[in-house]
């Protein structure tokens, strides 16, 4: 009799323990997403009121003059993204096509491995490399240097996502096209890549959203600029750079503008992420 109740107690204790651990993991999950809520709340509380017409139409004002905006930084960021896309998209997409369609299993797994390792290289390293490669050689900070740094960061990102979505294309599609006597490369471009185009675009958008918020690689390549950039071989402003400069400055009005810039940047990045979610309703992409 006593033995039975002891066993029952033990069973109860095991159940309690299980419930406690479940509760603990639930609290952990809440703690993990807490910073997201806090950052959002403070962004809106501190920045939303400063996002106004001036912010999108005015250049930064000199120190001491209240007001002004970041229109040059917003346009600068877009220019840098275009430059980066010109470098990153062709190399990344075509490299991904190779990994999915050609090559040996062993060689490809090595290339994949290297791409994954490259994804882990700190973004500031790319800034230093491009500084040595472009800025020192051409004796000056430039939009080209900033775009190159961002474009190089995009390559391994796009390469991996492109490969993954191309592998999802059913083999029947390839076989059908080849059976019609269509050349292999035309099959890949017009059938395989076309079928996977939604996924490829998703990967490109995610990569753009990622580099759009990068600051470290731009510090000594694009460098920043308080005025309009009329020549891509000259320094150019970028939204993340401007936020950084204003955040660490001692002026209250600049802090206010930094918050406003942060609101605009985050909204931009989140719009892209929502777009991606709409594009890929059936299969959620993982962000690794």
């Amino acid at each position, binding site marked *: 009799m006593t033995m039975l109740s002891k066993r029952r107690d033990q069973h109860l204790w*095991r*159940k309690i323990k*299980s419930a406690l*651990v479940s509760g603990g*993991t*639930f609290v*952990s*999950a809440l703690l*993990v997403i807490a*910073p997201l809520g806090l*950052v959002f709340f*403070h962004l809106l509380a*501190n920045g939303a009121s400063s996002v106004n017409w001036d912010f999108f139409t005015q250049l930064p004002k000199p120190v001491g003059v209240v007001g002004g905006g970041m229109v040059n930084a917003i346009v600068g960021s877009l220019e840098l993204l275009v430059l980066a896309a010109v470098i990153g998209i*062709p*190399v990344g997409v*075509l490299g*991904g096509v190779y990994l999915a*369609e*050609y*090559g040996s299993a062993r060689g490809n797994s090595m*290339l994949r*491995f*290297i791409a994954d*390792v*490259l994804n*882990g*290289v*700190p973004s*500031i*390293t*790319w*800034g*230093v*490399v491009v500084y040595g490669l472009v800025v020192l050689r051409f004796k000056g900070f430039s939009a080209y240097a900033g775009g190159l740094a961002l474009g*190089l960061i995009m390559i*391994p990102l796009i*390469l991996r996502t492109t490969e993954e979505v191309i592998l999802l294309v059913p083999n029947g599609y*390839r076989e059908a096209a080849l059976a019609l006597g269509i*050349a*292999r490369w*035309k099959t890949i471009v017009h059938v395989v890549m076309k079928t996977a185009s939604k996924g490829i675009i998703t990967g490109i958008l995610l990569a753009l*959203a990622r580099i759009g*918020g*990068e600051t*470290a690689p731009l510090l000594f390549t694009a*460098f920043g600029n308080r005025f309009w950039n009329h020549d891509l071989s000259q320094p150019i402003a970028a939204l*993340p750079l401007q936020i*950084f400069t204003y*955040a*660490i400055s001692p002026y209250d009005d600049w*802090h206010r503008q*930094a918050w406003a810039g*942060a609101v605009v*940047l985050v909204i931009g*990045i*989140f719009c892209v*992420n929502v777009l991606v979610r709409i594009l890929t309703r059936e299969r*959620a992409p993982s*962000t*690794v």
Partner: protein
Amino acid sequence: MAPPSRFGDKAFEWLTLGMALVVILLVFLIGWQLARGSTLAIQKFGFRFLTTSTWDPVAEQFGALPFIYGTLVSSLIALLIAVPLSIATAVYLTELAPLWIRQPLVSLIEMLAAIPSVILGLWGIFVMIPWLRDYPFPLFKRLFGWTPFFTGPIYGTSMLAGGIIIAIMILPIITSVSREILRSVPNLQREAAYALGATRWEVTRIAVLSYARKGLFGAVILGLGRALGETMAVTMVIGNTPQIAASLFKPGYTLASVIANEFTEATTDIYLQALFEVGLVLFGVTILVNLLAQLLLKTITRTTTTRAVQ
């Protein structure tokens, strides 16, 4: 009908091969540029660069030890905070959470991952630091002031604040990789444990976590790699003072933040060379850590691919 020309096929294959090989080229490009940029510094300071702690641009003496120390300590703090939280969250998401809540939670974690470093740093400066300075830090001092880690004046900007902000930055990546790992554990494992009468937690502990140990370790190492290279947010809250102090309330400096702060101020050649060498050290360490992480993760995730034409 003539067979399709082979030239287009060959040309396209070579073109894509060239693009794929760019990743190898990039690794060598980074290594070569960093080594070339720091030749003079390596010759002048030799091994001393890694073991001395004087960083004096005026006297042209450069030792990177305070930055190496700061990088390691801040990353360690970050791992201590982030690893238990991330793995517990991954367990919750794959084993315990009600099904309807899983996808929304995963989306929220992906959104956290999408927040740029500089914005987290902005939040760190104006929200997190004042709060830490007023509430948790004095509490830590009262409770743990008898250890050397929580002594001295509290400024707010500190090694501890740097570690906390890095923890926030690496939470999403460790969580999502751990989740992938746990999802790859075969259901047969779980069913076997349930059949023996195990509770949910016992199933998780015995059948899932022990099975996924190696992969989870890989996820942690991957997080470490990100932590070591984290730049903007850390630079904004760590205090940027090259010193080695036991107290976590004191400001510190990391390899990445010294580059971010001083690169454009480097007025002499040897100063710039020293900063390139800091970049070389950072690159060397992160590449090794990432290699280890990928090796650990590779054994778990499936890499088999099927193709129509070989």
